[in-house]
C-alpha cells in the first residue's frame, strides 16, 4: 500500500511514456547479420493447433523469443484452433512445405489421443515430434471452498454417490488418470468435458463440479483458489506449490505409467528432415542453445508457469511418450468415443 501511495505523481506519467517508447524499440528485431547466410533467410512459420493467447501460445512465445536470437530469424505463429487440435494438424500436413520453414507446436498428450479416437486423413507416419519442450503432470484438484480436503475424502464420497469431475475434454491424459483412479478404487466418477482448461477451472471454482482433472500448470499458479490433491505422474515435481500432493502410485499402490498431461512439443513433416538434414541439425542445435540461454529462464519465469516442467527432450523421447499415451488411450477407447456410458 505504501509504495502504491507514493507512486502517484508525475513520474508515473513519465515512466509510462518511457515504457511506450521501450515497447516500440522492443518490437523491432534485435538480431544482427550473423545468421544472414543460408538457412534461415526468412521467418519460420509455426502452426499452433490451439487458440491464440492459450497455454501453448504463451510457452511458444517464451521459447521463440529467445530461440530467434540463436537461429537468426523470427518465428511467426499461425493459429489453427478447432476440433481439439485436429484442424491444426490437418492444416499443417496439408499446407506446410517440407523446406524446414514450417513447424507445428502442439500439445502431444491430448492430440495423440485424438488419433486414437478417430484417425486423421493423413498418414501418421509422415509426421513426427522432434523436440518435447515441457512435461506437466496430470492432477486431481478441488476448489479451496470444497468440503474435500484430500483425495481420500473424495474417494470416500465417491463410493456413496457419483462425483462430477470437470475435465478439459474426454480424450485427455488427465481424464484417463481420473478414470484409472475410479477404476482402481471403486469410486464413481462422471467426467464432464468442459472444453478447455479455462472452463474447467471455472466449473470447479464455481462449485458446479465436485473436482477437476487437468494438467497441473494452470492450477498450481492459482493456489489461493485451488488445491491439488493427487498427481498422476511418478513424482511430484512441485511439492511446495501443490500442498505436497501424493502421487497416485505412491498413495494407492498402483502401477500406472506416468501420466504427463501437458507436453508441448515441436513437430515436423518427416520429409522435411529427410530433405534437409543440415537445416534440421541447425534447428536442433540452436534450440538446445536457446534452452541453455539464461534469457529463456527469465522469459519463462514471467509466464509464472513452473520452471520445473521445462526440459528439452529429444525426438526419440518424444516418440516414446506419444506411443505410451496412445497405448493407454487405446485401453479406454470405447469410453472416449462414447460407445460405453
Amino acid at each position, binding site marked *: 500500500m505504501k509504495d502504491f501511495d507514493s507512486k502517484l505523481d508525475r513520474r508515473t506519467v513519465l515512466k509510462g511514456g518511457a515504457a*511506450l517508447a521501450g515497447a516500440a524499440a522492443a518490437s523491432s528485431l534485435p538480431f544482427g547479420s550473423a545468421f544472414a547466410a543460408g538457412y534461415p533467410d526468412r521467418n519460420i512459420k509455426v502452426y499452433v493447433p490451439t487458440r491464440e*493467447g492459450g497455454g501453448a501460445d504463451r510457452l511458444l512465445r517464451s521459447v521463440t523469443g529467445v530461440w530467434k536470437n540463436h537461429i537468426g530469424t523470427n518465428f511467426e505463429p499461425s493459429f489453427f484452433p*478447432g476440433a481439439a487440435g*485436429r484442424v491444426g494438424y490437418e492444416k499443417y500436413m496439408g499446407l506446410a512445405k517440407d523446406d524446414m520453414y514450417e513447424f507445428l507446436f502442439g500439445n502431444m498428450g491430448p492430440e495423440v489421443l485424438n488419433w486414437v479416437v478417430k484417425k486423421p486423413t493423413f498418414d501418421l507416419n509422415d509426421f513426427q515430434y522432434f523436440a518435447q519442450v515441457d512435461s506437466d503432470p496430470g492432477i486431481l484438484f478441488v476448489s479451496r471452498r470444497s468440503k474435500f480436503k484430500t483425495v481420500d475424502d473424495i474417494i470416500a464420497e465417491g463410493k456413496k454417490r457419483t462425483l462430477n469431475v470437470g475435465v478439459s475434454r474426454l480424450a485427455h491424459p488427465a481424464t484417463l488418470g481420473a478414470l484409472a483412479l475410479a477404476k482402481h478404487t471403486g469410486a464413481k466418477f462422471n467426467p464432464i468435458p468442459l472444453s478447455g482448461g479455462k472452463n474447467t477451472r471455472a466449473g470447479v471454482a464455481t462449485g458446479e463440479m465436485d473436482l477437476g482433472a487437468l494438467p497441473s500448470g494452470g492450477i498450481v499458479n492459482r493456489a489461493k483458489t485451488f488445491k491439488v490433491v493427487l498427481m498422476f505422474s511418478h513424482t511430484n515435481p512441485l511439492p511446495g506449490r501443490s500442498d505436497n500432493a501424493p502421487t497416485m502410485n505412491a498413495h494407492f499402490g498402483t502401477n500406472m505409467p506416468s501420466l504427463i498431461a501437458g507436453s508441448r512439443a515441436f513437430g515436423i513433416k518427416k520429409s522435411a528432415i529427410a530433405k534437409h538434414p543440415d537445416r534440421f541439425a541447425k534447428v536442433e542445435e540452436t534450440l538446445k542453445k536457446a534452452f541453455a540461454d539464461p534469457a529463456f529462464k527469465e522469459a519463462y519465469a514471467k509466464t509464472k508457469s513452473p520452471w520445473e516442467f521445462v526440459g528439452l527432450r529429444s525426438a526419440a523421447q518424444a516418440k516414446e511418450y506419444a506411443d505410451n499415451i496412445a497405448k493407454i488411450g487405446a485401453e479406454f477407447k470405447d469410453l472416449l468415443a462414447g460407445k460405453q456410458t
Partner: protein
Amino acid sequence: MEYDLAFFTEMLGRTLALWWVLIPSIFLGLVVGAIPGFSAANTIIILLPLTLALEPEIGLTFMVGLYASSRMGAGIPAILVNIPGTAGAAATPLDGYPMTKQGRGQQALSMSFVASITGGLFTTIIALITLPWLSQVAFYLHSVEMIVIMFFGISLIATIAAKDTLKGLIAGFFGLMIGFIGTDVVYETPRGTFGFLELYDKVPLIPALVGLFAISEAFAVIEKQSIVTERGKAAMQEPGWAQTFEGVRIAASKWWHITWNSLIGLVIGVVPGAGAAIASFVAYQQSKTYSKTPELYGTGHVEGLIAPESANNGVTSGTLVPLLVIGIPGGATAAIMLVVLQFHGVTVGPDLFITSPELAFGPFTAMAVTYALMILTVLPLARYMSHITVVSTIYMAPIIISFTLVGSFVPRAYLFDMNLALVFGVIGYVARKTGYHVAAILIGVILGPLMETFFLRAMKMSQGDIMVLFSSSIGNTLWVFLVISLALPYIMNRRNGKREKAAAHDPYG
C-alpha cells in the same frame, strides 16, 4: 475488503493521470470495434508486444479502455450500415438500422452512445460497490440456470416471428440447426460439417453475422439510391447538432430502461462463458415483453435500440468481476487480460485485492473513467458519422461487401470463412426477399450451440435425467419468470384487443 472513500478518490486520481493512455485506446477501440472481425480481444493480441512491455497498471488501463470503447464501436456500423461488428452487437441493428433508414442515423447513434456510456458507467460503479456480493453470482448460476436464461434469448425467435409465425419459426429453427453444426461437446462427433474441418468448431460467428446482415443487405440495397429512404433524406436535411441533442434527450428520458437493461448485462457478464450476445438478446426480449408498444419493435423503436446497447456494455463491466475476484475470465477479452497479468507475474484471485489493490480496483476505475471520457470524445462524432448513410449505394454496396469479407477472414485467417460469409449472404438475401426474418436465423446460429453446450453438460451431469432442468430453486424461479414473460404478450394482447394493432408508426415514438 474494507476500502474507504479516500481510497477510491485516490484510485480515481491515479486513473485520471493515465489519460494519455486512455484517449488513444478509446479511439483505437472505436475503430477496431467498428470493423467486423476485429475485436478488443484480437487487437490486444496483435498489440501484445506493446502491452507486455508496459507496466502492468498502464497495460491494464490500456486494455480496459480498448475493451469498453470497442464494445461501443461495434454499435456504430450495426446502426448505420446493418453490420454488427461482433456477436454482442447482433441485436443492435434490429431497431437501430430501421432508424437509419428513416434518416435518424445521427439520433440513433447519439442515443446508443448515451445508452452505452451511461449503462457502462452505471454498471461499473455498481460492480465496484457490490464486488463482494456480485462475485458470488457465478456460484449460483450453473448450467441449468443458464439454460433457462438462454431460453429468454431464444424465445425472441417467437417474438420476432409475430408477423408471420410459421415463417419466423422456420427461420429460427433453421438457424438453430445451423448452429448445431460442428462436433458435439462431449464425444466430439462431427455433425453436419459437409466434411469441412473448418466447421468442426461450430459455425464461426463473424462470417454468419456479416453474411446474414450485411452482405445480403448489400445485394438487396443496390436497387435503391442510398440506405436512407427518400423521406429519411429529407429528414436529414435538418443541419447541425439538433439530432444529436434530440438523441441525448430521448435516451436520457429512458434512464430507467438503461438502468434495468445494463443490470441484466452486468449479471450475465459475471457468469463465465455467457457474454454480450446472450445479454443483448435477453435484454431486447425483456424490453419488448414489458413494453406498452411491443408492436413497434423492429421498426426503429427507441427502446429496442437502447436495451441491447446498455446491456452489452453492462456485460463489459461484468466480465471483469470473475476475472479479478476468482481468477476466472468471463470472456475472451478478459482471458487475454489474464495472460498479460500473468506475464507480469500478477496472480489474479481474491488475494489480489489485498496484495495489490491498485491492480484489483484499477480496471474498474479505468473503465469508469473511459466511459466518462467517451461522453466528451465520442458523442460529437455522431453528427459526422451518420453522413455515411447518404452515400450512394453504387459505392456503399461494393465497399460493404469487400469490408465484410475482410472482416470474416480476420478472426481465424481462413479463406474458407470468406466463402462461408458469402453463403450466409445468399441465405440472408433469399430470406430477406421472401419474408423470413434474418435476425431469427441469426439468434439460432448464435444461441443454439451455447444452449446445446449447457444442456449437454447438465444432462451429462445428471446422467441423462431430464428432470435435472427443474432441480434448482434459482432455476425454477427463472422458469416461472420465463413462462410469465412468454405469456404476458398474449395476455396484454387480449386486454388491448380492441386497440388498433397496426397503429400508424410514429417514427419519433
